[in-house]
Every structure is written in C-alpha cells, then in structure tokens.
C-alpha cells in the first residue's frame, strides 16, 4: 500500500521535474526579444483589429509604427488624429493630421428606380454573383444588393435597407476602416471627407453608359449631361465616361449642382431644408434625409 503511494508520488514528481526542465530549456532556446514599446503602442490603439490601416491587426500595426523611422504615411482610421497624436508622442515621431472620412454608398438604384430584369439564383454574396454576371438589373455598375459590405463591416455601421435593397452607412458608427470599400466588387463605396457637421455632396451613381442607356436601366442614373459642371463655381466636378464625379478636395458644399441634376443623381446629406423657392430640390433634400437614415 505505502509502496504504491510512494511510487506514484515519485513518478509524478519525476515527470513534473522533467516537464519543467524541458519547458525551461525551450523557453531559453527560443526566446524572442519583444520591444516593450510595441505593447505600449498597442495599448493606445483601438484594438478593433479591423485591418483598416493595412496591417493585419492592431499588434502588427503597433510593430510597424515602432519599427518604421517615418510614420507619416501610417494612419489608424479608427482611432483617427487623436490616437495618432498619442502614438506620436509616445514614440517621439511626427504624424500628419488627416481629415476624418466616412463611407458613402454611390448608388441609388433601389428596386423602384432600377427594375430587375432577371432573377439570380446562387450564393447570395456580391463577390460570387459579380463573377457570374452583371447583376439582376440592366446596370452593370450599380449595387448588387447582396450585402458583402455589410458583412465586412466590423462595427455594425452598415445595414441593408429592406425597402431599397441598398446598403446604408450609419455615419456615427463608421470608423472609415475601409473594409466595405474592399469588399465591394463594384467599387461603389467611397471614403469621403467628413467635413464640418458631416455635410457631403456626391454623385450617387457610377454608370458609365451613355445617357439614354443609363437612364433606361435606372431612372436616377447619372447621364453625364454636364449641367452640374456648368453651375459649379469651383471646378470641382469632372465628367469622364459619361459620368460626373465631385472632387471633395475642391467642393465647397455650395449645393448649386444638386437642383440642376435632371436625374436627381447628386446626393446631399445633413443640409438644412432648402427655402421654398425650389420645390423640386426641397423634396429631393427631404428624400436624402430619409435615405441616409442615420444622418438625422
């Protein structure tokens, strides 16, 4: 009896010691020096691990920040300027301030204005359906409506609007990490500067077809008529391939282009309602308020 107790105690003790020895040797042999600075920087970062900075996670980004001499081209979109300032202080390096941006969906092709001409059967992800064909509508540039962007968003800042079949960005939650931009096979989502009070004016269309064809596919398509170009005082609008684009760097948010657009394809958000003198634009502004949901 005592023998067996003693035996087991000895055996276990021996095994334990052996294991401890192995662990000790292995940890010595494979010791990796870890810059404590990386840990400190990592703590400053938002720990969202969204990969919006281009690194696979916050830890990897912290490593990059610590190791690179010049960090002026590194930016954490989630933490924004504040976090980057703290990081710069901690590291004693320089950062460049960036304008905060927010994701916008550049397609207004709801089921009503952009009729479906075919039915798609297959896995409901944009990546696959874009590979198979140009989509259920006649517009080969617009939103496919399968919500890859929503699935990619790690901050619950997007949802699919059941009524329109289009994704909606909840501006307050958007960290501009850019995952949705990457997920969209049609490049519909763009990061645009979040100017004061989140005022934005942008073209909600990417259709490069000629006017008539674009309009037949979708009644709110940009037809490249260049009316907006004519009224823009700052030359912020370029028209290429029958499609207008408003460059946020030049746009002063004067709103002149919005009412002249014959297809209502220019979107303005968060502006106060217009004065009575232009009823068309007024209803449009109202529409937009509803469409961008969160902006209210």
């Amino acid at each position, binding site marked *: 009896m005592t023998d067996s107790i003693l035996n087991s105690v000895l055996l276990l003790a021996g095994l334990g010691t052996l294991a401890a020895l192995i662990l000790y040797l292995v940890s010595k042999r494979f010791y990796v020096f870890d810059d404590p600075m990386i840990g400190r920087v990592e703590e400053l970062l938002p720990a969202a691990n969204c990969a919006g900075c281009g690194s696979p996670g916050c830890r990897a980004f912290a490593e990059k920040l610590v190791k690179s001499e010049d960090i002026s081209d590194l930016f954490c979109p989630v933490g924004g300027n504040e976090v980057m300032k703290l990081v710069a202080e901690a590291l004693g390096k320089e950062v460049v301030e960036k304008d905060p941006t927010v994701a916008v969906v550049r397609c207004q092709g709801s089921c009503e204005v952009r009729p*479906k*001409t*075919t*039915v*798609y*059967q*297959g896995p409901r992800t944009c990546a*696959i359906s874009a590979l*198979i*064909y140009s989509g*259920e509508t006649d517009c080969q540039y617009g939103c496919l409506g399968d919500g890859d962007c929503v699935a990619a968003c790690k901050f619950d800042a997007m949802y699919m609007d059941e009524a329109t079949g289009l994704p909606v960005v909840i501006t307050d939650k958007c960290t501009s990490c850019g995952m949705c931009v990457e997920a969209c096979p049609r490049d519909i989502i763009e990061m645009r500067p979040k100017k004061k009070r989140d005022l934005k004016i942008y073209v909600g269309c990417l259709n490069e077809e000629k006017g008539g064809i674009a309009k037949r596919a979708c009644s709110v398509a940009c037809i490249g008529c260049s009316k907006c170009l004519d009224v823009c005082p700052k030359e912020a609008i370029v028209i290429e391939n029958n499609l207008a684009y408003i460059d946020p760097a030049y746009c002063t948010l004067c709103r002149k282009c919005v009412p002249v657009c014959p297809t209502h394809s220019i979107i303005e958000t968060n502006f106060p309602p217009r004065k009575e003198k232009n009823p068309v634009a007024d209803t449009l502004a109202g529409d937009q308020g509803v469409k961008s949901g969160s902006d209210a």
Partner: protein
Amino acid sequence: MSDAPIIVSASPHVHSDRTSRKLMYDVVIALVPAFLVSVYVFGIPALITTVTAVAACLIFEYLIQKYLMKVPVTIADGSALITGILLAFNLPAGIPLWMIAVGGLVAIGIAKLSFGGLGYNVFNPAMAGRVFLLVSFPVQMTLWPTALENNTSLVDAITGATPLGMIKEGVQYGQSMSEISASLPSALEMFLGVTGGSLGEMSALALLLGGAYLIIRRVISWHIPVTVLATIAVMTAIFWWLDPEHYANPLIHILSGGAILGAFYMATDLVTSPVTKKGMVVFAVGIGALTVVIRLFGAYPEGISFAILIMNAFVPLINTYFKPRRFGSRIKAKML
C-alpha cells in the same frame, strides 16, 4: 416572359434527381424488413418501442430547433426519423418508455443539434443515444425479452440472454466453448432472427436484404459494411483458430449481436463516415477491430456501438489523411 423574369445562375443548369431527402427515405425503406421481423418476434412491444423512439426524436428536434435554436425546423428531411428507428433498433423490446425518450433527447439534442444539426454532427446520433442509455441504465438495457414467447403482453416478460451475453458469461465462469454452444441458438436461427437481443439485431437476413437495397440504390457503398464484417470475421477466426475452446467461431460473431445492423446502417451513416473509399476502408477496419477487442476482452458482451462512436471521432483525421488521388499527380510526363 415579362411577368416572370428569366433566371440567371452559374452552370451546371441540370441536376440529378437524387436529393438528401430521397436518400433518407431510402434508408427508411431499407429498414422496413428488419422492423417487420422485430414486430413478428417481439410483438406489440417492438412496435411501441419504435413508435416512441421515432416520436421522441421528431418532437425533440422540433422543439429544440423551434424554441431553443430558433432555426428553420427540418424534421421533414427524414434524418430524425432514421435516428428514431435506429435508436429503437438498438434497444431491447419492453424497455420503459421514458428511457426511450431520454435516449431520443440525447441522440437529437446532444449528439446532433448541439453540434449544429444534420451534417455537422461528429457522432452517430442513434449510437450516442444507445450508449448513453447503456451506461446509464445497464440493467434495463440488457433485459432481453426472449423471442417469440412473450409477444403478446408486456407484463409477463420472460427474459433471456443474447448469444454474445451467454458466451461472455460462460467464458467468465470458465466454461469451454463446446459447453456454451450447447445452449446457443443455431446459426440458422440467428440468421433468421429468432434469438434474444435488441429489436433490430434480430434477423441477419432482413438486415442484409435492406443493406443490399441501399447498395443497389447507391445510398451507401459496399466498402464500409463489407470491410467491417470481414475484419470481424478475420480477427475472430484467428482467435478461434488459436483456441477454439475459449473463443467463439466467426460465424457466431457475424450473425449475433449488432454486427450486421452496425455495419450496414450505423457505420455507413453518411455524415459520420469518411468521404473517400480509401478512408471508408480504414474507418471500417477500425470499427471491426475495436468491436472484436471489446467483445473478446472488454466488460461488455457487445462492442460495435462503442467501436462506431470511437471511430466517428477519427473521421476528420481520416478525411485529412486519406484523400483521393489528384489527377495528374502520378508521374512526371511519361515521355517517349
């Protein structure tokens, strides 16, 4: 054409008419002969046991999917029905009904749905239910009503041992094989199915009939059942040849107990068996070997249910290591 827009989808645009549901109902059809034999042998209790098990499985699947998991209910796909029938086939007739319900709950709730439902379960649900009952209620689970003698009433159940149970007991008491075999049913009796045992273990003939149907309908391939039975036969033959006074002959091992039921219906469960033919053979050899080891050296007289569950756990590993040969990986260009 304007009212119903044309459909666009990726190729292929045709599909074979085999569906999961058809496969499931083919299995049910294959189980009918064995079920009829069990009702003939054990009478009404067999019917009650089967109906209870099936009902328990369907009800638990419905309740759990609807109220606990809040996913679409899939009781119509036939898989819970099969689990119920197979569970019943692995129980002795006349077992208390509440125990059957517990078995159903374990099979469906724990072995199947907690892993994610059909297709995700690692272990064969019916086997898990049976083994749970066997280790929890060993007495009731081995109270075998004797065949053909009490098929009218539940009350006067006369119980007897299964052939494998007799052998195990006899060997433990130091009896020699020739002494034991005097009390065993004949091979023909075992083949036709008038011995003691679980509901579905009865008639090898009925089970083989159903198994042949499954193979002809290409629901299962022959690899698993044939290999399991062959392994059992070969291994028991070796032991029998070494010491015929101590070990039963292979024929007894094949025909008695759940060997055929397990080999054709449990081990071949699509979800919990390997996907490649090579893997299937490896899997089946494992089942056969473990069954023999448990039968000859373990505490239980029968071991195929344990063997199947153990090998189920190896399936992901088998799938990883026994892959089909890739086309074109044989040789570097055979030049001339």
